[in-house]
């Protein structure tokens, strides 16, 4: 397969994990501008695990997920009492704080005669597990998409069970959900925890593909895109945010002619879509129409 295509597909897979993370919170009715912070945490944690301590990649990714989920949980506890704009701003503030802390953080170790590890604004270089273990770009693409498929399968199973429906109920009307005996606050915290872990999984995979990260990677731009993908693609199914990523990265990238005007096209498309289809292309009504009659 063409190298360029492998690169684009890898990026789509990685961005999908981040977009799914933001989408999960959209489902329970919260808009987060801060999922990039968990992506960053996952990247740093997984990178430190493999590059500085020689852990195998799966274990490093797992460490990243744990760190991301714990952070997601810790942020959710104080912010879940906030709603709407206040929640959005709180998550953004957290993410910016994380980014600024990473700009200051130096944590280096000598590995094989080379100083490795997070080095403030210089970033974190030399996360070479994939290269040291001679995993091909195509092989790593397989790893990324294997994980994306497993995540999607898990989300589909949840969608069809009571927990998924309860999350949608909380997103539609949290007070009514509470009145039905659903622990809305706890469900939101659970979802925020899972979303934190999911974003961190994407971050862990990203740092091993790029071999380096720096705090600048995790600015609000990344968070806004992750959020927009769910809003464009649709809130009705977990395929929505994936569709959003594919539309932005894939389609616009394929049309290299307009790639330069991409931000303009992207911004315009989001604005028009949010007016025409406030819950995205694959919204609940469409998903219902498409799946009706099936068990």
């Amino acid at each position, binding site marked *: 397969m063409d*190298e*360029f295509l492998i*690169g*684009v597909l890898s*990026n789509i897979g*990685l*961005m999908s994990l981040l977009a799914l993370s933001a989408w999960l919170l959209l489902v329970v009715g919260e808009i987060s501008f801060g999922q990039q912070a968990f992506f960053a945490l996952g990247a740093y944690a997984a990178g430190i695990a493999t590059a500085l301590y020689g852990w*195998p*990649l*799966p274990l490093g990714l797992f460490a990243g997920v744990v760190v991301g989920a714990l952070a997601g949980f810790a942020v959710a506890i104080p912010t879940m009492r906030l709603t709407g704009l206040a929640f959005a701003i709180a998550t953004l503030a957290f993410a910016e704080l994380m980014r600024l802390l990473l700009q200051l953080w130096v944590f280096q170790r000598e590995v*094989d*005669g*080379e100083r490795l590890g997070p080095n403030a*604004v*210089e970033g974190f*270089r030399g996360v*070479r597990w994939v*290269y*040291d*273990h*001679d*995993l091909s770009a195509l*092989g790593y693409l*397989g*790893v990324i998409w*294997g994980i994306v498929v497993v995540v999607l399968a898990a989300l589909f199973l949840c969608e069809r069970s009571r927990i998924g429906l309860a999350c949608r109920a909380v997103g539609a009307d949290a007070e009514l959900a509470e009145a039905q005996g659903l622990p809305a606050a706890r469900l939101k915290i659970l979802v925020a925890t899972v979303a934190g872990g999911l974003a961190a999984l994407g971050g862990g995979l*990203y740092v091993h593909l*790029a*071999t*380096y990260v*720096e705090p*600048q*990677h995790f*600015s609000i*731009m*990344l968070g806004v*895109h992750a959020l927009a993908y769910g809003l464009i693609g649709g809130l009705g199914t977990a395929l929505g945010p994936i569709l959003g990523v594919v539309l*932005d*990265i894939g389609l616009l*990238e394929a049309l290299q002619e307009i*790639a*330069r005007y*991409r931000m303009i096209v992207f911004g315009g498309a989001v604005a028009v879509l949010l007016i025409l289809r406030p819950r995205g292309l694959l919204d609940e009504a469409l998903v219902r129409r498409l799946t009706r009659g099936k068990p």
Partner: protein
Amino acid sequence: MIWLWLMLSSAALGQTRLDAAIECAATARLMVYDCAIALADRQGRPVDGAKFKLGADMPSMPMAHNVRPVEADSTDAPGRYRARLELEMEGEWALRLEFSAPRRDVVVKRLIFDDKGGREGR
């Protein structure tokens, strides 16, 4: 299966890392740059016979800008290579040298591009 394989494979490759210095000059075509790359090993000795592709990503928006990687050509000068790179916009880019020889490896360099060219920043 793939996981098992990942867990078990632990063959670390040769440890002599490469170092690169890159400078790019603007060309007559908009957003197309001629990049000169100097490769050296850790001891500062020029490295010849390397095969690598030059790609780019924007640190301000990772994963979203896919620049088609271009093959770098060797020149007569020791350790010197050149490549013609087309970017999507001016600004800060992380150039990515993906080596297939002397061994698989990646070197990342940050450059700031404007209408005159690209220089390593920070």
